[in-house]
């Protein structure tokens, strides 16, 4: 893991420590979510909040707050991927063409137009983040995204090329 959130203190199991946990983790979680969402601020905020609500729900359901800060990252990308899958199904069901390479680009936040991930299709962003931020092997990325390994390899090739183009364009 390279996102750095694991460096945060593992939260205690009392509700009072939830706020402290939030303060310790929100910066890293927000940045992580921002990568997934391509710097779309509204989507990033939603994703961060959903992740924290999941945490709170777990704690309120009686689970000790022992899952560790890395749980937030896993939950965050799981929810993002779930959105992707839901959107994929919706488009498929409604008969609209779905193309990974032509997925809706995010609404990039002002000032973030030069970001590497901003403007990339959602599936490409997810693949790059899972591969290079979470350091997951390709088969695991494929499993999470619901693709074959080979399709994921192709997806990563396209994503890297797109990211490379943005890097070069941004100088």
């Amino acid at each position, binding site marked *: 893991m390279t996102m750095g959130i694991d460096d945060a203190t593992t939260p205690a199991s009392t509700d009072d420590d939830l706020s402290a946990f939030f303060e310790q983790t929100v910066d890293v979680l927000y940045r992580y979510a921002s990568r997934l969402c391509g710097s779309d601020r509204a989507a990033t905020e939603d994703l961060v909040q*959903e992740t924290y*609500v999941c945490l709170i729900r777990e704690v309120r359901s009686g689970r000790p707050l022992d899952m560790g800060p890395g749980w937030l990252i896993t939950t965050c990308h799981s929810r993002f991927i779930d959105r992707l899958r839901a959107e994929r*199904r919706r488009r498929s*069901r409604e008969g609209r063409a779905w193309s990974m390479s032509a997925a809706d680009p995010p609404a990039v936040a002002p000032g973030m137009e030069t970001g590497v991930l901003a403007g990339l299709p959602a599936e490409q962003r997810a693949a790059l983040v899972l591969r*290079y931020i979470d350091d997951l092997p390709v088969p695991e990325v494929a499993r999470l995204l619901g693709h074959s390994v080979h399709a994921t390899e*192709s997806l990563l090739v396209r994503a890297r090329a797109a990211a*490379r183009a943005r890097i070069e364009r941004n100088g």
Partner: protein
Amino acid sequence: MDMDEERDVAAAIRQDGEQISKETRDALRDRFESAANGEISVIAERAGSRRTGWRVMAAASVVVVGGVTTLVYLESHRQAEPTSIPTPTSDAAPTVATTAPAPTTVPATTVPTSTSNASSTAPTSSSIASPPLGELPYASVDAKLPMLVAGATVKVGPAGEAPAWSAPWPDLPFGSDAQPAPQGWLAAYRSGTAGRWTVRFFDATGTKMRWEVRVADSKADGSKWDQRVLAGPTNVVYVRYFSERDGSVDAIATAGPRAGSVVASWPLPAPMGECGFPCQDNTPPTALLTEGDTTIPFVDEKGAPVTTTNPFFGVSFDYQYAPGPAMPASWITHTNESQFDDLASVRVTMTRHHTTWTFDALGVQTYSGGMEGFPFFSYKPTQDGGYALTFRVGDHPNPNAGQHETIIALLHADGTVSLYQLDPSLASASAGDVTADAAGDLILGTNRDPMTGTSSTWVRLLPRT
């Protein structure tokens, strides 16, 4: 793109991402504290109550009367719709809220164990209306929904008889990710750095080797790999080899006199990347290839091309989707859970061998964890005199999703059974005709992996002799 370029891209991605602003941080903290104090949870529970109000729990048993399969419902009841739910003021309440029937409890129905009168309680085609799609009775979900829980046993043989089977019958495990669980493991070995590669196929436990086959030197030249595989529908497993120069796919028999032998092989022109892919019994061989490559045919254990091993051969699914009344948008935005979409109905029409089954799913389209699902089913008797039964099995790996796969069991008039698996959205069938019209007892169960803590639900058909 070489390794340096890939490293540069990875480094750039790690530097990417927006830093949180103070305003955003404060806003998120406020919402976080509201959630921690229960304010958001209250709304979520309210919405959950509505969903619970739709939930119909039922237990079912199936008996066969004179060769005719009959569904009899042990008990079912509809949970009460809470009356204390305040109606959202900014949006119109959904139709379900205004037309939902009063809380009812359907008295338990005794299952006739005798074979003489059970058929009188069976639903008939005339007793189950089939309204046009989009006009499904959102507020009157059929209380006779047969949603079985893991551990239940559905007898599709003559009632009262003990199950009898004469040969091992495969369990049909479905993993938590809705993928069929591995029926075996493929591993490659070689002795020393210069030794020849040997592919070994182990059983599902990984402790018993079934067969091994020596790999030609021209294949798997140094690539390190270890792949999960599933025995194919015709006792053939497809193995893809990786090479710096090219690749190939071998079809290896896993049963029969040629078990462990390569019965067919196809070259792959494109070099392969990283290793690891599941070779599943419902994976078309085209999935093993690069995009745009030609199709590799299915072969049987003798290497002869076959066309009927595709579990969906002869089966077609048609999906119709109709949106229902909109849910109040405020419920979604306030919870920020995206937990509910609009009311909706889906009609799945499955045609197989000129026989059509229709399944209607309706209710609140849930977005728990982002996965769509239609937890409520109605059904129609099949045209051949059998019945369709739906199961809900499996949990989505996302602990927040709690989604279930659906298994449709077609109980034919002759007592045979066919199983199909649909994903939570009903948009695709992910497993095939896994029982091949066999007769027997359907048993649902759950396996729990003590090592990982994960569980999977399986369906097993115990054939009768």
